């Protein structure tokens, strides 16, 4: 069912070479090169002979057109021919691949190959995760111990007198028993509240301790310890018989704990809700900027909020788009050779600046025409893509319930339907992705999955294409694209200090960094002015002419 597939629809990829740059298994596939471009292939052609002869023609053509930089010129040979060492892999490494035209099978080496980058990342992750986990477990156990202490204390206060001096104890009257109910319910409320506020899955591991939580923990600990001291000295030692007083003491402890919980809510949750600062976040590689409003937070918490916004708002980081400006910069530097005659230290850079200023440089011209050309090319490819996808979508139809019972033949589930129509649009889509340099963001598997998803949910071709036409936020893509879950906060001020007007810090990740500057939202002085509704009066504009 593949367009131009191999013998009788069996797809095999031969002549493999391990490419260590790409992570995707299907990146090892090779297919028709530039020679096949521009030729309309019939959809779902399953006749191998016709396809094969077409391929041999293309092979010749592709050899002559290998000067096009973005296409690889490799040949997919059917199994009868010998493994070729001369399969023409010209020029640069394949960044992209011809899955639009070829097969689906994968050789053994591809699944287990790792690129150098992957290895670095994995080792880094391993090193850091051990340290972080220790700290996380440590804080968790501390929190659990404190919680248990807090909950068991009132119960202990109530139970201990019965255990230690049961004979001397006064019996519990009505009011006292009523207080038991109150203690029970307050403890239940406290339990639920603490669970809601504190026992949530941790979102992140921050570099320094969370100051407010630590303060609250210390406060609670001191509080409970002081209550125990008092209890120990005045009640246990003297073996007080007034049980009602003891119960009231326990109730006051629980009340105070509830108030401390209220304090915790205000400090941890409510204080930073009101926006106080406007932060400007800029990505260092391509200048994408967004502005967010944050409340009064410490720098590390603000950084956490910004990273979460980053994953949702910023378009995915695409290093392929930066290569053009880098090559331009290289060209600028390469044009001049400087000879140091006098032996002075900074004369070299000054000489270069002076020469660059004087040189009549036409690179702006090239840039302008190149960009216009690129724009035109993208639009053309997009038009072809839209047409191909729309046509592909017309080939399948959702079957109604009644029809399902009547015609059981050739019924497909969404995944099979997606695989059926995918070949007809695959080439156009691949070419478009190559032109916009997004080909590494989307693997064939993910495209087919997305197609099946769109078919299942009755989406139109336009809805299907939307995720390929514009780069979406990072979270939309596969896990590979957010390998950077290790962020480094670089700040001159201490990271537990609060955000201030004009504070600047950096969030560095492996490929780029986010530069964050904050500005205080100004104090707004508003005054009122009362307008009487009856004071709206109008006159006609007069322009009279009188003859005298």
């Amino acid at each position, binding site marked *: 069912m593949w367009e131009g597939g191999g013998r009788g629809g069996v797809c095999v990829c031969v002549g493999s070479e391990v490419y260590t740059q790409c992570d995707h298994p299907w990146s090892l596939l090779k297919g028709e090169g530039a020679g096949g471009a521009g030729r309309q292939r019939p959809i779902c052609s399953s006749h191998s002979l016709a396809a094969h002869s077409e391929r041999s023609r293309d092979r010749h053509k592709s050899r002559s057109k290998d000067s096009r930089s973005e296409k690889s010129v490799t040949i997919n040979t059917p199994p009868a021919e010998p493994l070729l060492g001369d399969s023409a892999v010209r020029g640069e490494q394949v960044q992209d691949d011809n899955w639009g035209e070829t097969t689906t099978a994968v050789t053994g080496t591809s699944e287990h190959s790792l690129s150098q980058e992957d290895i670095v990342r994995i080792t880094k992750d391993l090193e850091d995760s051990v340290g972080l986990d220790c700290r996380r477990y440590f804080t968790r156990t501390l929190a659990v111990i404190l919680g248990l202490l807090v909950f068991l204390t009132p119960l202990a206060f109530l139970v201990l007198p019965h255990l230690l001096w049961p004979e001397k104890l006064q019996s519990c009257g009505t009011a006292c028993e009523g207080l038991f109910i109150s203690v029970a319910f307050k403890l239940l409320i406290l339990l639920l509240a603490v669970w809601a506020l504190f026992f949530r899955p941790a979102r992140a591991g921050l570099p320094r301790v969370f100051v407010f939580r630590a303060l609250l923990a210390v406060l609670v600990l001191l509080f409970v310890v002081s209550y125990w001291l008092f209890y120990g000295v005045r009640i246990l030692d003297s073996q007080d018989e007034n049980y009602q007083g003891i119960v009231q003491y326990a109730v006051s402890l629980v009340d105070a704990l509830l108030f401390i919980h209220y304090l915790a809510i205000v400090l941890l949750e409510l204080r930073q809700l009101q926006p106080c600062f406007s932060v400007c976040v800029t990505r260092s590689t391509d200048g994408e900027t967004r502005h967010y409003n944050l409340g009064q937070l410490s720098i590390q918490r603000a950084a956490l909020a910004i990273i979460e916004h980053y994953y949702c708002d910023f378009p995915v980081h695409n290093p392929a788009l930066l290569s053009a400006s880098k090559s331009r910069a290289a060209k600028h530097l390469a044009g001049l050779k400087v000879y140091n005659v006098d032996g002075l230290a900074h004369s070299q850079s000054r000489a270069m600046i002076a020469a660059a200023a004087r040189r009549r440089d036409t690179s702006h011209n090239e840039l302008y025409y190149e960009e216009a050309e690129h724009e035109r090319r993208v639009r053309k490819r997009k038009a072809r893509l839209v047409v191909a996808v729309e046509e592909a979508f017309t080939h399948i139809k959702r079957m109604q319930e009644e029809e399902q019972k009547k015609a059981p033949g050739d019924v497909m589930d969404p995944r099979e339907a997606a695989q059926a129509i995918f070949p007809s649009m695959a080439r156009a889509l691949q070419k478009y992705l190559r032109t916009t340099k997004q080909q590494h963001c989307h693997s064939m598997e993910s495209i087919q999955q997305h197609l099946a998803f769109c078919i299942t949910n009755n989406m139109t071709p336009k809805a299907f294409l939307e995720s390929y036409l514009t780069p979406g936020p990072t979270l939309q893509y596969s896990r590979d694209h957010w390998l950077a879950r290790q962020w480094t906060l670089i700040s001159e001020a201490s990271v537990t200090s609060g955000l201030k007007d004009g504070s600047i810090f950096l969030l560095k990740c492996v490929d780029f960094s986010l530069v964050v500057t904050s500005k205080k939202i100004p104090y707004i002085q508003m005054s009122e002015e009362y307008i009487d509704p009856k004071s709206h009066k109008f006159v006609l*504009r*007069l*322009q*009279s*002419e*009188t*003859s*005298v």
Partner: protein
Amino acid sequence: MQEVVLLLTNFGFYSLKQQRIEIQKLRQGNNLILGFSIGGGIDQDPGQNPFSEDKTDKGIYVTRITPGGPADVAGLMMGDKIMQVNGWDMTMVTHDKARKRLTKKNEDVVRLLVTRKSLEEAVKQSMGGFPRP
């Protein structure tokens, strides 16, 4: 008598000449007419005055001259700004007040001090080099 004020505006090089014009009123039936129409006044909209170059000028302007009437004969021209009528100031009056000052029944003659925009004069004078006294 003629004072020339050279004015540079956006649109040209105008000069403002002040002139004194004496009009004899003509009796027509029960009325004494002067033969022109006025527009403007402090209670009017100055933006709609086609004759003023400063659209906030609320002075009294001559908007129409009856051909052959007393004003025409006396040399009053359309677009003149009336500064004084018989010694009374007309730069800050309402439209109705201006009308009344011009149509007093017991006066036969009105002596007007008007300001006139004149482009040709300025060009001639700048080419001539010296303002004419």
